[in-house]
């Protein structure tokens, strides 16, 4: 992998990890469409992926650092007291409920599922599936808005839905469990969790925020647990580190953009993009 490919893949990972369009799907599909000759199964590619994840997780931690300080202290207080008394403690426990079962299932199923489906045609098909999930969630939301007679402006319509603090523990577990689907290359982690959040009654912006908070520990753990693999690796370090920095910067900009976008925006454009890329892959890649 040369320097510019590393920069390109860093930008791709940083943006597609948070946009609801599947980073893994892009990592499988684009090299096939662009006829690049590196393989993800190459041993030198794993340290690169680790660095990209660390870059993305760092960006999320920087953006939400105040939330994470509150969440960590809230978790510690509630854990020692054995009772939830404050909203920050409840948010911490909602994230635990949403993250841990999925992390456990993911650790067991990640390798078998990704090796089974990590080919461009499967990823193309799952990208179309991702589009169906996104558009399905928006159709359910629109139906709910129509039934409730909410024909006012988008930001007023969003006011009728809840914040993360209004989520039940069952709903948090279900939204978190949606992440299991994202083990399939082409299904977006942020996409399915935002879609799950919408179905659970969250505002778009709150669904995106909950999605990013759920993603942070998983992305960080995916990177940190594999740091030992970096030691002694003889790889193109300047290119890999530059790719990681680009991934972090792109993730930072993407997260800021998406939080602002989902104040009134919907998932529809991303559903259209995923459907188009998935279909293009199915047609072009044999």
């Amino acid at each position: 992998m040369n320097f510019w490919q590393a920069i390109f893949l860093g930008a791709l990972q940083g943006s597609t990890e948070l946009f609801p369009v599947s980073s893994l799907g892009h990592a499988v599909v684009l090299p096939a469409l662009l006829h690049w000759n590196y393989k993800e199964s190459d041993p030198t590619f794993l340290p690169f992926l680790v660095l990209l994840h660390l870059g993305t997780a760092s960006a999320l931690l920087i953006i939400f650092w105040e939330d994470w300080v509150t969440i960590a202290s809230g978790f510690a207080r509630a854990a020692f007291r054995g009772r939830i008394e404050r909203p920050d403690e409840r948010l911490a426990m909602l994230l635990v409920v949403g993250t841990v079962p999925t992390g456990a299932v993911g650790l067991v199923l990640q390798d078998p599922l990704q090796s089974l489906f990590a080919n461009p045609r499967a990823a193309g098909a799952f990208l179309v599936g991702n589009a169906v999930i996104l558009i399905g969630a928006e159709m359910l939301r629109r139906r709910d808005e129509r039934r409730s007679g909410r024909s006012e402006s988008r930001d007023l319509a969003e006011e009728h839905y809840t914040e993360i603090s209004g989520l039940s523990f069952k709903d948090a577990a279900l939204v978190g469990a949606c992440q299991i689907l994202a083990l399939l290359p082409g299904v977006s982690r942020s996409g399915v969790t935002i879609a799950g959040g919408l179905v659970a009654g969250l505002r778009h912006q709150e669904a995106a925020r909950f999605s990013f908070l759920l993603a942070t520990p998983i992305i960080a753990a995916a990177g940190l647990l594999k740091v030992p693999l970096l030691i002694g690796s003889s790889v193109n370090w300047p290119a890999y580190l530059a790719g990681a920095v680009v991934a972090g910067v792109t993730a930072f900009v993407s997260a800021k953009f998406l939080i602002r976008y989902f104040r009134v925006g919907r998932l529809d454009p991303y559903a259209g993009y995923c459907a188009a890329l998935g279909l293009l892959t199915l047609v072009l890649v044999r």
Partner: protein
Amino acid sequence: MPVMKGWPTVIGLVLLAVVFVVLAVLYATGTISFLASGGHKNHYSHAFLLIVLSVLSLVAANFVRPKSAS
């Protein structure tokens, strides 16, 4: 005896935490490797997850522990 209502659950969760710790040690030392893929001998990621589950079992035990009314 209402005061004892939650104790069986508490004991079960503490035992579960102990089981998780034992499994974590076995995974970390490479003694067992079921549910783990790849050619590595030591599965530190599985061990880490099991330690997290152990801590959460203890937290859950603290939550269901019968508390005084104060």
